[in-house]
């Protein structure tokens, strides 16, 4: 690692995240201001607000940096977004003092919040609007933990850029906007005026980014003048040159391509706080032409390219995810903002996409070992084994990256949803595991859905036993069910009811964002917002998908399986007895719990008894959600991923028929219940492959291996074969924790010794010591496979 990289990396890693009031102050200033801007249309006002922010925020260029630009006034300074959700003084205090993932908040910031920010935004934030408009049924379900709501604290984003910025400068985008404006038909299109306003807003946003880059050029020039070291002076002059050229114009070389993307990234995450920040996506594909040309012309070496990539990596690490409001001191969170860089996959014509940069990116990932950006490899059947092996070599280092995705499955998923073959091939996965048509799709995660909570409500005839409130349908006293089918019917009815409640809420929330918080800058970047004259949040994108993410597939399957096996097949447990035992959290009936744990079939062992029930649950959930229209001309779809919500969903859930005690986490992703898979990884792969992955927009499978399994070539080949087999069976994604339980237990006892221990949580990596104790325990518990 070069000295420059070592220093900057160290600074980025060791600087503690803190809250900066900069953005909140500037946005509030703008919104509270007077004059013509205040009477402008909403999109134009939003664009002007972004422009005001980028014109007035502090510009920062660190020693030794080549790629420049920070979201806040300095690295790790995290802005807030009061127009979405406004932190209270208590929130700020908790953020400042909580043990896990704290954000320092100084006195001055609190004062600013107390005097200016809170008074101005009270009652105006979109979060308050959302909760103000949700129905009683929605609130009951939300409070009971049936589902979560993604958009109450962060804006719709969940999207990835394609190759367009590498071909076009902002000035070219402006030409496209003008063209679109000219084609507006004010005589026949009743929406022409609305479109005109949106296009004007995009134009302002494009200018705002050019201006922002120019300010960096100015700052670099100024610094160059004062710089005594001639080498650094030259670098600063080069930075000024780069920032004067991009983003106004298309990039001319590798350096400019990276800098251009970085400005775009900052633009997106400054405009609002969209989910999963933003993401360059298929970086090896986008940068390869610049890389190749640079090497051919002798203007770039492999080492220089690697250095620039590493500097680019550090930029991501310095922008922690914006913190939530309304948190408790115990609630754990993450600094990871889920940018997920793709390497590998296929090209638009279907041929193998792996190139030298795909390998170089993996070298960078291995050397950087940062929690963000995340990285993944796309493996298609055309991907050479040598690339799979390279990925496995990095995986065995044990810091949870890269995760591994099946390109062929992703393409099938996207095609099934109606995307063109080229758009599907140019796509990939982002966030945790979500499949998307990069640069052309708005794919919004709207909330997690607690599949096991539905069963609990069925077993209590519509009542949530935790809150004692009637929140669901009365589907009958379960003791009266005479067959397993009757139970399944009741489950489906109950699930349909809550999905309806959720979708009704989604449709309202979607309109709130479309009307109140359009995102003209993001819209500029995603096809076909410019052509349509429509905002990203209002159906401007070519494809518009909403997801509801099912959680706890393992727990719900094992719970239903236990009931079928014990109550209806063997008939040695009565339904009444079971429900009472669940209410009592198995107190005084540990015997029954042990029977449920050990003497019933479980998902994850390639046993059709349990796996068929998994398929039934999948079909019920799929039928309830898939194909339901959203308000943007697109559809709702399902995916199966948990991030960390399986901990929360377990907390709101009493004891379950699979022998799980109240409050314990539910299973994560599509993985079996922690410890329920007893027949090794091949049986897990077989069970999980019985899910029809192609009808989802992503599934998440976690496997943990002890590092010694991958010590030699043979072990690495075996892991490669395991991946290939899972993908042959249409599996969507698999990720590996290569670490042993002993190490993790020791890390729990002595966190100070393991501050740099990265583990794969669920779709992303995080520092083990930053995780809640429950989550730590759960990671330890995930079956540690000792042999293949």
């Amino acid at each position, binding site marked *: 690692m070069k000295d420059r990289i070592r220093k900057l990396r160290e600074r980025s890693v060791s600087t503690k995240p803190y809250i900066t009031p900069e953005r909140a102050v500037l946005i509030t200033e703008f919104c509270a201001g007077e004059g013509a801007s205040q009477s402008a249309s909403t999109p134009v006002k939003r664009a002007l607000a972004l422009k005001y922010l980028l014109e007035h925020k502090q510009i920062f260029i660190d020693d030794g940096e080549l790629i420049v630009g920070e979201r806040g006034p300095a690295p790790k300074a995290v802005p807030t977004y009061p127009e979405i959700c406004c932190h209270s003084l208590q929130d700020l205090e908790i953020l400042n003092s909580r043990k896990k993932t704290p954000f320092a908040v100084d006195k001055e910031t609190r004062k600013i919040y107390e005097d200016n920010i809170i008074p101005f935004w009270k009652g105006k934030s979109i979060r308050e609007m959302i909760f103000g408009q949700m129905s009683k049924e929605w609130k009951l379900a939300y409070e009971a933990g049936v589902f979560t709501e993604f958009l109450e604290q962060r804006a719709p984003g969940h999207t990835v850029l394609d190759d367009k910025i590498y071909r076009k400068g902002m000035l070219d985008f402006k030409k496209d906007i003008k063209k679109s404006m000219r084609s507006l038909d004010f005589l026949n299109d009743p929406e022409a005026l609305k479109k005109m306003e949106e296009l004007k807003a995009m134009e302002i946003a494009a200018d705002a980014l050019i201006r922002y880059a120019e300010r960096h050029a100015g700052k670099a020039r100024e610094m160059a003048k004062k710089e005594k070291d001639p080498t650094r002076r030259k670098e600063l002059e080069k930075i000024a040159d780069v920032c004067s050229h991009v983003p106004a114009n298309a990039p001319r070389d590798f350096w400019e391509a990276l800098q251009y993307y970085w400005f775009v990234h900052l633009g997106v995450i400054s405009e609002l706080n969209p989910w999963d920040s933003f993401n360059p996506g298929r970086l090896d594909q986008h940068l390869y032409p610049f890389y190749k040309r640079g090497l051919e012309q002798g203007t770039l070496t492999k080492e220089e390219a690697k250095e620039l990539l590493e500097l680019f990596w550090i930029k991501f690490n310095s922008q922690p995810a914006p913190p939530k409001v309304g948190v408790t001191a115990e609630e754990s969170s993450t600094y990871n903002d889920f940018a997920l860089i793709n390497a590998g996959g296929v090209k638009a014509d279907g041929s193998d996409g792996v190139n030298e940069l795909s390998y170089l990116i993996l070298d960078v990932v291995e050397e950087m070992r940062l929690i963000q950006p995340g990285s993944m490899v796309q493996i298609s059947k055309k991907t050479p084994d040598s690339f799979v092996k390279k990925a496995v070599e990095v995986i065995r280092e044990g810091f949870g990256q890269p995760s591994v995705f099946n390109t062929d499955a992703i393409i099938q998923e996207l095609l099934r949803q109606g995307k063109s073959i080229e758009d599907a091939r140019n796509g990939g996965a982002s966030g945790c595991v979500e499949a998307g048509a990069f640069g052309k799709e708005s794919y919004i995660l709207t909330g997690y859905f607690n599949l096991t909570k539905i069963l609990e409500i069925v077993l209590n005839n519509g009542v949530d036993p935790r809150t004692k409130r009637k929140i669901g349908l009365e589907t009958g006293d379960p003791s009266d069910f005479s067959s397993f089918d009757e139970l399944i019917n009741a489950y489906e009815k109950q699930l349909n009811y809550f999905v309806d409640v959720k979708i009704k809420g989604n449709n309202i929330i979607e309109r709130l964002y479309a009307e109140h918080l359009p995102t003209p800058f993001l819209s500029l970047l995603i096809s076909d917002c410019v052509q349509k004259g429509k905002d990203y949040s209002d159906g401007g994108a070519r494809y518009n998908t909403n997801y509801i993410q099912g959680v706890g597939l393992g727990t719900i399957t094992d719970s239903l399986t236990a009931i079928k096996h014990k109550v209806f097949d063997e008939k040695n447990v009565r339904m009444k007895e079971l429900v009472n035992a669940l209410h009592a959290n198995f107190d005084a009936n540990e015997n029954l719990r042990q*029977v449920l744990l*050990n003497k019933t079939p479980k998902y994850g062992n390639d046993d059709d008894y349990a796996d068929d029930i998994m398929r039934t649950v999948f079909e019920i959930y799929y039928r309830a959600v898939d194909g339901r229209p959203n308000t943007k001309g697109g559809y709702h779809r399902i995916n199966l991923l948990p991030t960390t919500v399986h901990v929360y969903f377990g907390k709101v859930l009493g004891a379950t028929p699979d022998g799980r005690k109240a409050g314990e986490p539910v299973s994560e992703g599509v993985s079996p219940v922690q410890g329920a898979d007893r027949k090794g990884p091949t049986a897990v792969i*077989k069970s999980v492959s019985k899910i029809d992955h192609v009808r989802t927009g992503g599934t998440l499978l976690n496997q943990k291996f002890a590092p010694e399994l991958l010590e030699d070539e*043979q072990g690495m080949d075996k892991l490669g074969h395991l991946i290939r*087999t899972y993908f042959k069976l249409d599996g969507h994604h698999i990720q590996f924790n290569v670490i042993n339980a002993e190490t993790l237990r020791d890390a729990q006892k002595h966190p100070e010794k393991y501050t740099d221990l990265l583990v794969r949580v669920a779709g992303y990596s995080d520092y083990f010591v930053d995780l809640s104790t429950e989550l730590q325990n759960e990671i330890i518990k995930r079956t540690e496979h000792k042999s293949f």
Partner: protein
Amino acid sequence: MSINRKLCNLCGKCALACPSDALVLVGRAARADEMLKEIEKDVTFYDESGGGVTFSGGEPLMQPDFLEALLEGCKERNIRIALDTCGYAPCETVDRIKDKVDLFLYDIKTMDDGTHRKYTGVSNKLIIQNFKRLVENGSIISVRFPVIPGVTDNAENVTRTGEFALSHGVKQVCLLPYHRAGIEKYRSLDKTYRLEHLQSPSDEKMQMIKEKLITLGLDVRIGGG
């Protein structure tokens, strides 16, 4: 709680009644067609890795009829077969199965008949005879050599074993270092483990034996995987 093993007739009811799986019945009676179904579950992995089924034990040659049915079933399904055996079986048994196996993983514990008798209770003559039969048959063989400190790891035995393999045209040798994983199993079976004091051979020792065999001209790997 203690178990009176004299009364045990392997009915397994105690394990069934034990809710927490503190008692488990290891192994079960199964028919060949049942086993083939189980094997078929993993075919997709064999296809990818070029692997197949390994029959091991106990000693698979102790159940020749069952084994033969399974081998034929696998052959019908084009599944590759390895047989892990100690070679101590009647010659007729070996003849029955020798053409249905793709790879023999053949234990040669010690070339010294006295030592062999002392530690296994039988002579190694039949084992060596069966080995030769397989060689004559043209079977592919990989020698498995358990490295047991103080028993098989002396220089003379290492050289003799290596030379024996080579002289029969067998080049593959896997060195299996003695491990202590059996201690816990014996304990839970209420059996006395007579080598409790014996430690696993050191990495250096394993490396030394490996190099010795390599200089003889063998392909050697440590571990059986």
